[in-house]
């Protein structure tokens, strides 16, 4: 109904292959970016930043990473929590070891470290598939958490076993630590998300994206036409862990400030990430954002509803919240197994075909 595509024709392959081929969608996207970068920072207060925006951005990054592995390459992983922990601890060690280094590079480097660890735990994927691989990643989850718990070197022998993020600046603006301004942390995370979303878009549109999807759809046929399974799967694990590592570093340094490994990066984080990817939509970048938004905003909304307006005790609210999340996941899997992204695609297709039926 809202689409007027008539007259919008492509004269080059670059145009035909661009991210937003339909003109009205290009304007919509760049408008949203303008608002996100230039308008929101002025209105963000610490409540909104701490409980909604920063978690949304960080979790979108993590969900994007997992989507590359599970959505595009078809390798199920339950180790997201541990890989976030690797990112967080790498970031902590780098911050404490090289105070001079800018937080931007610290986060990128910790992503790199996680990528290496990810590849290591991706090796089993060459021989085993499906549930068995999920169990292998579970092994990574429990093993890594145990390692960060057991060897004090990781948390610089601090008594409580916790790691806290010292204050760091980017271009002179404080970004981590207690007195970081809300808009600074927001913009910092937003830039990261923008860069990585753009990177994910580029990786999944060309040869690399297609080899991942080929492995996902039918790995025997993919191998026969020339996709090397080792390189494809390991590159998927590496790139996915790189994203999750950066997400973990930001999760620790900007969002939490201080973290205790078993509590902050437990198995529930892995499940949460997997829910985001499934509900958001496997194999879609937009799906990662929609999934993250859904699972970050929904608890906040429920908390306000139950505790805020109905005044119930927090534990009852928490239980109902878990029940509702479980129930909604089942509901989504029944109604639209391909997630919110598919719902968005269907509505878009219906609007383009309007008034004709889909």
């Amino acid at each position, binding site marked *: 109904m809202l689409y007027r595509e008539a007259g919008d024709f492509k004269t080059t392959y670059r145009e035909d292959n661009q991210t937003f081929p339909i003109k009205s969608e290009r304007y919509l996207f760049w408008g949203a970016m303008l608002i996100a970068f230039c308008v929101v920072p002025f209105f963000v207060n610490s409540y909104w930043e701490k409980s909604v925006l920063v978690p949304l951005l960080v979790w979108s990054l993590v969900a994007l990473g997992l989507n590359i592995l599970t959505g595009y390459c078809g390798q199920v992983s339950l180790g997201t929590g541990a890989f976030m922990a690797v990112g967080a601890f790498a970031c902590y060690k780098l911050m404490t070891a090289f105070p001079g280094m800018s937080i931007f590079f610290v986060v990128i480097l910790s992503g790199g470290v996680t990528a290496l660890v990810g590849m290591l735990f991706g090796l089993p994927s060459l021989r085993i598939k499906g549930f068995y691989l999920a169990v292998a990643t579970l092994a990574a989850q429990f093993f890594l958490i145990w390692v960060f718990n057991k060897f004090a070197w990781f948390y610089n022998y601090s008594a409580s076993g916790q790691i806290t993020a010292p204050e760091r600046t980017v271009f002179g603006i404080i970004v981590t630590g207690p007195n970081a301004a809300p808009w600074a942390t927001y913009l910092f995370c937003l830039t990261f998300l923008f860069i990585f979303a753009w990177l994910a878009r580029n990786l999944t549109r060309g040869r690399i994206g297609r080899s991942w999807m080929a492995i996902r759809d039918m790995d*025997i046929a993919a191998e026969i036409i020339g996709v090397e399974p080792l390189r494809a799967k390991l590159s998927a694990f590496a790139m996915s862990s790189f994203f999750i590592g950066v997400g973990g570093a930001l999760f620790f340094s900007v969002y939490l400030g201080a973290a205790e490994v078993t509590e902050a990066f437990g198995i529930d984080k892995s499940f949460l990430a997997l829910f985001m990817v499934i509900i958001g939509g496997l194999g879609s970048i937009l799906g990662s954002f929609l999934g993250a938004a859904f699972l970050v905003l929904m608890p906040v909304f429920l908390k306000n509803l139950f505790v805020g307006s109905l005044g119930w005790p927090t534990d009852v609210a928490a239980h109902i919240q878990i029940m509702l999340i479980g129930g909604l996941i089942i509901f989504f899997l029944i109604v639209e197994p391909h997630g919110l992204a598919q719902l968005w695609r269907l509505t878009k297709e219906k609007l383009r075909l309007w008034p004709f039926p889909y």
Partner: protein
Amino acid sequence: MNVHMREDMSLHSMRADDGIAKGEELLKVDNISLSFGGVKAITDISFDIRKGEIRAIIGPNGAGKTSMLNVINGFYYPQEGTITFRGKRRRRVRPHETAREGIARTFQNIALFKGMSTLDNIMTGRITLQKRNMFWHGLWTGPAEREEIEHREAVERIIDFLEIEHIRKTPVGRLPYGLQKRVELGRALAAEPALLLLDEPMAGMNLEEKEDMSRFILDVNQQYGTTIALIEHDMGVVMDLSDRVVVLDYGKKIGDGTPDEVRNNQDVIDAYLGVPHEEA
């Protein structure tokens, strides 16, 4: 004003020439035997495929045709026997390495990537020819995008050749059977193969679709000089299209030669008419 693509239809713009003259031996299999845990699929089969010819492999169901095809493209490694491709004796390789050497194939029951559109499926055929690494793809604008456009042009020529412009952007899951077979042929052609293995390309097709597919196979062979190994049941098609025929039965070779020689070979007639077969 955008630059015009090279209009010439030559597909072999990217693959290095292998220096074998037309008619010379491209692939030779000697005394191949293959068994799956005791079950003998192929016993002691030898034959060759010359460059530029259409070589048919025929035989009743379960004669070992598809298994032989899987041996040629490295999916199974035979217990005994040797394979020489382009003069090089092949050691134990992974299937994706044979794809790089220039062997492409279609599958008996369609193996398309359901999650992608027709265009993307055919583009995956180009994977062995694309060089840009992860870094350039991350950056995208620049060399990676140029390479992508260059390969898109080659794929568009194939889409034009197979006359499937109207389904370029449809997910393959939604296509009818005949068109899916054509997309799969497109994907195999996109790899610009030296040897193209077709596993029953016309199974389940009506007469008109069969004629189209035969025309495409002949054009591929004549226009691009691609050597084709064809597995097919329809004797009419085999006799028209192929230059030479190998006949397999119960995993053994019972006939080899031109279509006419094979038609009058008594063993072949027996195999097809179901004369009782004394156990090996």
